[in-house]
């Protein structure tokens, strides 16, 4: 018995070491989870046609609302079929205009540059057209370098996509969708074709979404900046530096931009990026989008508090405490603020006094922002359960219906329908007016 044990000892050492290493890795399941994205679906109405933009991880789909057929997918499967953005093509043509060329040669190169795709034969064809011109060698080299740089930049931007998190911004006419990727790439896409108007790289990761205000779009970055980009070109108009990462989509109301930061502040800026006031009362970061109603900014914080702030001065009016962070955007309706917390509860709070009216236990942390639809409050827990709550009592009118997988994305509503995007490759359209009848739409690969 003894001799057997001592013989086994040296053999055990490596086995134990291997087991330890394996156990360590198995227990931890490898690396921390990478970004998966939780961008909610965005209904869009354009030229009498209803579309739904839905993101899944690093892909964006445009679906017909009626048939749920996919119209396009971004990024495109084949880069050879995906045109260079309009803005980049415009810059190339502008550069071509600076070169002295006979008109027939110019027309040939222009035609090639107007048909540039992100990869494939069109690039070579354009270069050959440039080489065939009578321009001097330096000018030809410069043109070809710019052409290469433009196609490479947009190709890399698409292949380097991580995940879409924030709100998808849509222009007033519905023709352009602005999407920001976690990698720091921002795209202005044609909502009918999925082709890019322009592509920009802001240089920092982006968690929040895009707010659209006429010719300017606004977004925050993990690099602590609040950015204003030209909606037609993606070029930076101004940036405003905060003391923390900016994870939430800013809110534009009139001529004031409201933004939150992980420095625990709410900022009010004018449209030139000048600060009007700063509320620095939160004891932890703020990851929710500010909601403005009746001259008051309502926003929840990671210090477990929901704040009501004077929209004109930034002075705190009241705060309400919960058991965990507020990350979901608040909803305000008829003097009541509805706010969901990661403590698993949905709170209805008097908008004037901050007093609790009722609370509902969703049974799981709630990160996705609820919506008002069908005369009730539709809320989704991280566990995938969706409820419709009575606005007066907080009792569930219907539900739960189960999505089966986690729900972290903000809910969206249009025409009585609620769009729910869980972490699975499925979009649920729920009829909030009825009994939460759900239609599930599998998103294509």
């Amino acid at each position, binding site marked *: 018995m003894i001799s057997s044990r001592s013989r086994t000892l040296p053999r055990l050492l490596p086995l*134990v070491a291997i087991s330890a290493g394996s156990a360590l890795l198995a227990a*931890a399941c490898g*690396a*921390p989870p990478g*970004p998966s994205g939780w961008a909610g679906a965005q209904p869009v109405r354009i030229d009498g046609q209803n579309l739904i933009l839905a993101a899944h991880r690093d892909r964006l789909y445009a679906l017909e609302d009626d048939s749920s057929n996919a119209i396009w997918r971004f990024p495109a499967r084949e880069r050879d079929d995906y045109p260079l953005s309009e803005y980049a093509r415009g810059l190339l043509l502008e550069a071509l205009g600076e070169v002295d060329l006979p008109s027939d040669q110019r027309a040939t190169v222009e035609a090639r540059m107007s048909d540039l795709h992100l990869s494939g034969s069109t690039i070579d064809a354009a270069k050959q057209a440039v080489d065939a011109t009578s321009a001097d060698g330096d000018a030809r080299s410069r043109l070809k370098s710019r052409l290469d740089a433009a196609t490479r930049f947009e190709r890399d931007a698409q292949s380097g996509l991580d995940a879409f*998190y924030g709100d998808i911004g849509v222009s007033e006419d519905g023709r352009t969708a602005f999407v920001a990727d976690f990698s720091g790439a921002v795209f202005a896409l044609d909502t009918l074709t999925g082709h890019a108007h322009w592509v920009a790289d802001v240089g920092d990761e982006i968690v929040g979404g895009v707010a659209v205000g006429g010719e300017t779009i606004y977004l925050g970055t993990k690099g602590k900046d609040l950015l204003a980009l030209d909606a037609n070109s993606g070029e930076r108009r101004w940036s405003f530096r905060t003391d923390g990462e900016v994870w939430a989509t800013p809110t534009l109301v009139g001529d004031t931009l409201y933004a939150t930061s992980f420095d625990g502040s709410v900022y009010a800026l004018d449209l030139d990026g000048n600060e009007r006031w700063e509320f620095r009362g939160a004891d932890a970061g703020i990851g929710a989008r500010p909601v403005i109603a009746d001259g008051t900014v309502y926003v929840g914080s990671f210090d477990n508090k929901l704040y009501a702030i004077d929209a004109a001065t930034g002075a705190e009016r009241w705060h309400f405490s919960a058991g965990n962070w507020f990350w979901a955007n608040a909803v305000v309706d008829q003097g009541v603020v509805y706010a969901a917390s990661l403590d698993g509860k949905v709170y209805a709070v008097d908008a004037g006094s901050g007093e609790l009216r009722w609370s509902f236990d969703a049974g799981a942390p709630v990160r996705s922002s609820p919506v008002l639809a069908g005369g009730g409050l539709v809320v989704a827990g991280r566990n995938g359960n969706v409820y419709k709550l009575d606005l007066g009592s907080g009792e569930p009118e219907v539900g739960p219906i189960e999505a089966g997988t986690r729900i972290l994305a903000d809910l969206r509503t249009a025409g009585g329908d609620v769009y729910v995007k869980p972490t699975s490759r499925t979009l649920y359209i729920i009829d909030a007016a009825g009994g939460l009848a759900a239609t599930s739409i599998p998103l294509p690969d």
Partner: protein
Amino acid sequence: MDLIIDLFHVLLVEPMTNVLVALAWAAGGNFGIAIIVFTVLMRFVTWPLTARQYKQTKSMQEMQPKIQELQKRYKGKDPKKLQTEMMALYREHGINPFGCLLPMLAQFPIWIALYQVIRVSVGEAPESLVSLSQTLYPISFIHSAVPLQTQFLYWNLGQPDVSLVLPVFVGITMYVQQKLITPAPTAATANSTAAQQQQMMLWMMPLMFGFFSLQVPAGLALYWAITNVSGIALQYFYMGRRMDWRSLLTLNPAPAQPERKPKALAVAPQPARDGPRPETTNDDEANEPVAAPSGQSTRRKRHGRRRGKR
């Protein structure tokens, strides 16, 4: 099973997560410093277990000359007698052959929990923050430290270190640590399967962890690096006099040879099967010339001891 997992989280992962985040808050949001302090802190917390492990390892190393002598005497002649004598030797020195394994095994849950803590805390993806929110205690300053700043020196602790500095450092420090605790094979055991496995593990583990460090966020690689460095430091302070630091430079150490004049250590020839066992040396004598597991010369060992005293 769920109960065990829940207990594991409540008793280990959650408290450790909160301590780590609190340290990050105390370090002005510097998560790198928090990881370093936390890892060292955990080394001290687990010191009683580590010390037992080192003590057993040290005793095993001290016994090597005697084991070699026994092996020389009985190998191929009377294996049963060899095992009996070796177990008697273990008993004589108060060593449990499994004594160095048990403290190591006991530490695994703590290290796994620590790994989990870093994994959850350092995650750069927003999803990690949702998970973290469920782990933090309702203490306001802890929540105010979130999100943790992942920039430390030139590393983004939430992303793999593509510069290779940390992965290489993890590999080297792990090799050094492995080398220090792996006894050199004796002449009798040099060709044994166990010795070959030990030598293989000496290389495999550093390579594996170096490779893992390339894949995981730099925060985890930093944690491994500090774990190794603090392990080496503890080994130095605990066993420094007896460690042959020069052997680190030998890629394939020669099998240890019995000492030419092992007066103080060698097992004296047994006069008779059941005859009186020679008196063992006192501690000072035993510790004096022996030390290193690899049969390096006495002169080299003394040199090593002088270095250790400096």
